[in-house]
């Protein structure tokens, strides 16, 4: 098996995550799809780190995890705030500026 197979899985997971962000309406599921995309990028980093034989890719993946954790904290706080005022976690309902 070639190590590049991990890259194909990573590309597939990233694509699935991107579709989820566009297609799903529930803000929490959209967030989970963003996490999936970040994880897919991490898998690429780790695989490239192995292919190139140095640890820079793993350090980058580590930074990505920290940023993902921050993003989840702030994003979920925003979702809770929107839910508290609008009683809905659907991304379609937060369209006040349109009307």
């Amino acid at each position, binding site marked *: 098996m070639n190590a590049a197979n991990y890259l194909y899985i990573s590309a597939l997971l990233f694509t699935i995550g991107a579709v989820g962000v566009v297609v799903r309406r529930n803000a929490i599921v959209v*967030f989970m799809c963003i996490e999936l995309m970040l994880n897919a990028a991490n898998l690429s980093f780790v695989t490239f780190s192995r292919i190139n034989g140095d640890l820079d890719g793993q350090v980058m993946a580590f930074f990505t995890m920290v940023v993902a954790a921050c993003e989840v904290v702030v994003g979920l706080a925003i979702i809770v*705030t929107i839910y508290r005022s609008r009683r809905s976690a659907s991304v379609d309902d937060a369209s006040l500026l349109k009307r």
Partner: protein
Amino acid sequence: MMQLALEVGQTAQPEAIMFWILGPMAVVAALGMLLVKKAVHSAILMAFVMVVLAIFYIAQDAVFLGIVQVVVYTGAVMMLFLFILMLVGVDSSDSLTETIAGLRPIAITAAVGFGGLMVSLLGRATLGRQAIGLSAANADGNVQGIAKELFSTYVFPFEVVSALLITAAMGAMVLAHHQRTTVRPTQRQLSINRFRGESLGSAAGLPGPGVYARHNAVDVPALLPDGTPAPTSVNASLEARGDMLDYKSFDLSEVNTQIEEEK
């Protein structure tokens, strides 16, 4: 005879077996995330994908990242997601109807295009490239190697990331904080409101749920002494979720009159 040297760019057989079992499972679970209706099921599938990725990391000599993946993602981040799902739980089942016309075909077409582009690009760029492997870089241990990189080459990004973490924590606290716009009623005020209100019906507090003698669950409203059900006895969130039983079948008014006639 055992083959000691691996071919250029190839990995050991056990890893290939693991990859071909877990890889398709991860992709199927990720697809399931898009297709299932309830957000909780999405979260469980997501946790599965994350665990599979952790196994992939460990298989690729990134032991530290594999452990961090389990601890941070499946441990902390997914628990946070499930916690928020429980908070927002009432309407967590997503309607899968299209709200923007033609969005789904466009999204799927774009995804197939993007995915095909990525896969073909990767095929051209990496096939025939030999993997060096991390045995040299991990000679002192994976954690020690990452620590050496992190605290020498990447020490400034590391500091920036710490500032980012503090900012995120502050942001979450600011978003979660909300100021009272009205004065909080005291116990004395609440008591006065109960007794000086238009009716004394709830003077002794709201009735508890459950029907005498026939049903004793929290999702059934209590029967008042005159045989009529009291919808206020059921928790409001159960009612909003649609989990309240139909109380009409528990209405005892007809049964009561029959018993009187027999006497």
